[in-house]
């Protein structure tokens, strides 16, 4: 048994090596990414503090020479700034600039240039955009980003722009370009390699203790991997925390020096700092909400600074757990011999896999991908406002599902005591869909069966003509039928009401109440669905041997007895699949509802699928609509499984 295939020891050696290598290397790159993110965040925060110090300074000066002098002084005090620009909305003018390109004929103050050589449209648009955002935030109480950050084209730093405000009005834009200095600390390679090597060596050592046995080796490998990867995670987290606290310290010192510098520039210009400067408030996010990490006397509040990293901590824990699962899975894949098995299957059934590849590729692109994408969307807040954002940013977990499934406000009593139904509620729509499906299928089957029995009469004349006529409703495109029926139910001109009037009745306005509106859709769909049932039943009827009936007659059975004991049981194998199919069709019968009732009145006659459509394409809540569709899919899936059981059971009899 041992000979021919590699030993368990070797397998688990390879497995733990591969598992540790993949998990720890991934961890290494994740840590690297997190650290460089932190370094970038720290620079951005320092940049924001500088920008807000500058805006604070500029907004306290009068426009014109005073403003330009303040800007020049500020530039002198901050060597890490490449340039400063101040643009005013009034007249689209460049009020001050320390950009080397803005000298000579381009020196400020001047109008923004429309010239082909120097097109300053971007800065103008940026100013307008920021003004718009600030006003929107104020009016709608939202927190969209009021500061704009951008990388410089040559990669040497970043630019940061924010609003210039006077008396609570946005009057212009302040922009700085700052060079980036600090490089991120990188995770050490030696540590990483050690984390990979140690579990391999330990397993080799342990394997002498446990011997060449599969299960004990598997346990050892798993425990070793869990320990190692967890250790790497703990180490990473403490590193990130250290860096994060250091960043807050750096920001505090930037704010402190900034405060002092602005104060001294203001003094130089002979301006009283009234109200007093508040450098601690300069440390804000891009929406200019204070981070509240700095105390008013510019000390770092350690608890607050740490709590800013709570999110990072959970992210590290989550990543660690995922890496553990991945590492252990890889180790077991090799160690338990599944890798070998997999390779062998591929080799042996190569031709078969070749044959199914094209179909698989087609299925993946046309079926599985859209399906998976739809399900992914259902976990996001993808709507008309967020179409430009990446899905990760608008991820909102199960919120859509919770909103759909936990809304039990179906009806409430209004002030005058009458009941007001909330027809947009999921459960109402679900209930209506079930009623709709059951009633339709019942009508379809009953009518279809009766007509089939009639047509099956041997002595009936002109049978082919009847047959063609009865199949016609099925042959006409169903949306045309739907529109025709809607026309027939028109209150003033519809043929139905005209007929009612002919017999002395008063015209009914069909779309006024949920019930009458439902009747119009039911009539239309009944008309559309009986031919299918009729054709199916007729086929099955004709295959029942005539001698069965003859024997029954000889035994003295009545017509009804013949029908219930011979006809119905013989029809069952044909009818049951047809009913299952037509339940699914009717459940999702979009055209008829959409065209005939359009959900009127007040959305009471929507079925689930038309409701999902309305959420997506009338309310533009794509994520919510995706969740809605997923729920519909779930319902049909449950129905399918349930139905399968029943059919299997009935076949057994």
């Amino acid at each position, binding site marked *: 048994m041992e000979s021919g295939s590699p030993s368990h020891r070797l397998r688990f050696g390879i497995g733990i090596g591969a598992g540790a290598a993949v998990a720890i290397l991934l961890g290494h790159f994740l840590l690297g990414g997190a650290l460089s993110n932190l370094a970038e965040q720290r620079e951005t925060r320092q940049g924001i503090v500088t920008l807000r110090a500058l805006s604070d300074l500029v907004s306290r000066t009068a426009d014109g020479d005073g403003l330009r002098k303040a800007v020049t002084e500020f530039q002198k005090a901050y060597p890490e700034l490449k340039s400063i620009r101040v643009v005013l909305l009034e007249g689209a003018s460049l009020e001050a600039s320390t950009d080397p390109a803005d000298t000579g004929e381009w020196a400020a103050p001047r109008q923004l240039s429309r010239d082909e050589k120097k097109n300053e449209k971007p800065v103008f648009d940026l100013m307008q955009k920021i003004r718009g955002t600030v006003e929107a935030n104020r009016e709608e109480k939202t927190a969209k980003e009021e500061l704009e950050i951008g990388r410089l084209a040559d990669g040497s730093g970043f630019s940061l722009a924010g609003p210039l405000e006077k008396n609570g009005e946005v009057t212009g834009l302040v922009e700085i370009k700052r060079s980036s200095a600090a490089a991120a600390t990188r995770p050490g390679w030696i540590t990483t390699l050690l984390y990979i090597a140690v579990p391999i060596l330990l397993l080799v050592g342990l394997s002498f203790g446990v011997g060449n046995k599969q299960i004990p080796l598997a346990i050892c490998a798993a425990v070793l991997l869990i320990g190692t990867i967890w250790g790497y995670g703990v180490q990473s987290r403490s590193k990130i925390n250290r860096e994060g606290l250091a960043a807050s310290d750096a920001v505090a010192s930037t704010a402190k020096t900034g405060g002092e510098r602005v104060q001294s520039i203001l003094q130089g210009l002979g301006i009283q700092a009234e109200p007093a400067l508040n450098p601690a408030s300069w440390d804000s996010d891009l929406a200019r909400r204070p981070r509240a990490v700095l105390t008013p006397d510019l000390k770092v509040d350690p608890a607050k600074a740490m709590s800013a990293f709570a999110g990072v901590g959970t992210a590290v824990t989550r990543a660690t757990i995922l890496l553990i699962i991945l590492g252990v899975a890889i180790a077991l894949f090799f160690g338990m011999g599944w890798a070998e098995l997999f390779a062998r299957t591929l080799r042996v059934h190569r031709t078969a896999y070749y044959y199914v590849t094209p179909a698989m590729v087609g299925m993946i692109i046309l079926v599985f991908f859209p399906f998976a994408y739809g399900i992914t969307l259902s976990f996001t807040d993808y709507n*008309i406002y967020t179409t430009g954002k990446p899905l990760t940013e608008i991820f909102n977990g199960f919120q859509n599902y919770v909103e759909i499934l936990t809304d039990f406000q179906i009806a409430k009593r209004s002030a005058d005591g009458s009941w007001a139904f909330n027809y*947009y509620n999921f459960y109402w729509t679900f209930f209506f869909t079930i009623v709709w499906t059951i009633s339709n299928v019942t009508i379809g089957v009953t009518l279809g069966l009766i007509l089939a029995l009639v047509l099956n009469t041997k002595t009936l004349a002109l049978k082919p003509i009847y047959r063609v006529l009865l199949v016609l409703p099925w042959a006409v495109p169903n949306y045309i039928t739907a529109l025709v029926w809607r026309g027939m139910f028109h209150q003033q001109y519809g043929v139905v009401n005209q007929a009612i009037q002919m017999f002395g009745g008063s015209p009914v*306005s069909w779309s006024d109440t949920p019930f009458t509106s439902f009747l119009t859709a039911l009539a239309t769909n009944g008309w559309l669905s009986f031919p299918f049932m009729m054709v199916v039943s007729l086929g099955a009827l004709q295959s029942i041997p005539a001698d069965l009936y003859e024997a029954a007659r000889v035994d003295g059975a009545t017509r009804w007895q013949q029908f219930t004991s011979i006809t119905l049981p013989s029809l069952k194998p044909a009818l049951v699949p047809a009913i299952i199919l037509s339940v699914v069709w009717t459940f999702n019968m979009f055209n008829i509802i959409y065209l005939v009732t359009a959900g009127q009145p007040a*959305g009471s006659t929507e079925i689930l699928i038309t409701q999902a459509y309305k959420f997506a394409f009338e309310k*533009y809540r794509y994520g919510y609509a995706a969740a809605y569709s997923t729920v519909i899919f779930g319902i049909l899936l449950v129905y399918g499984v349930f139905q399968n059981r029943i059919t299997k059971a009935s076949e057994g009899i």
Partner: protein
Amino acid sequence: MKRSLTSILGLAAALVFPASAALAQAPAAPAAKEVIVWHAYRAEEKTAFEKVVAEYNKAAAGKGIKVTTLAVPYDAFADKISAAVPRGKGPDIFIYAQDRLGGWIAAGNTVEPIDFYLDKATKDRYIPTTLEAMTYRKQIFGLPLNYKVITLIYNKKLVTAPPKTSKELVKLAKSLTNKSAGRFGLAYAYSDFYYHACLMNGFGGGVFDAEFKPTLNRKENVKSLDLLLKWIDKEEILPAEPSSALITSLFNEGKAAMVFSGPWFLGEIAKGVDYGLAMLPTLNEADDKPMRPWMTVEGVYVAAPSKNKEAAFDFVKYVTDKPAGVIMALEGRQTPANKFVYEDSKVGADSILKAFRQQVDVAIPMPNLPEMTMVWSPATTAMNSIVKKSAKPKAAMAQAQQSVEKDIAGLRKK
């Protein structure tokens, strides 16, 4: 088999020959900047627009700009723009009504702001309200090309002098109504919120306040609905369940003397019907203020990710200028937003264009806020329940207001 072979050959030849002809011409022109325009025009509107483009291409050959057009079906247009443009796969320019503008701006990287290019002379050449439709939070995002607005359209055989006030309208309509014969003095899609807006705005109502908060339940809106109900129930001058198909057939059969509708209705009028256009009447019930329909404005927008924005804007300016407007008015039967177009002698003499031009002075641009898309569905529900008497105007509008507020809150969670 043989036939299909020849047809394939023919097809191949058809593909190759124009291509080779183009190749032969290519070296003559300088390396052209290609500007791609998406539009949803059909029939004569398309022909007129393409003529304008051809003339521009002739004129701009020296600048090295070449404009190519692509007609995209209207139903899919807006969603295609939302999907393609932000990912840099779309056109350089596109033409669409202002109602989706706010959504595109909120989504970002779709519509390029063009304030910076505009001087006063350019801004002044448009009918002010049409430029207002292109403005979002004080920033201009496109130039208005054509507008569409509802007016009074009447059958000249039945109506000799169109009514000037709502009292005259009711009086005249009553004399022309014979309910049992299915004849009505007035017909319009009053249960459609878009059509009802001309009454609603006439009373000084509206959908949003100055701070962009929904205000469906304001009392002016309720008053306008009360008047509508009076017209339906008390005066009995309107048909029930007025779908657009029904109104068209009533008007064509001479069973509806007057109709409130827009330029799209003119194409549906049967050949033999002699019709005229007039301003919507003033409302005696609202201190003689005019009825103010919503107008939709087709804007020409530069796509934000376009590589040829300058060239694109050059075309945008051209296509909204007077000569282009005259062509589109006379040949495309459109109503240009450029006010100087109406100084042209032929356009000025055209009674239809003149009527729309008069109406637009009191029209209100339909809100271009993204929140507007949330209004339609609740407003339609409210209109239906009011018209069908299942709710009183005040209660129905309060319900709609609640529902719009809820939807907007659902979108603005972040």
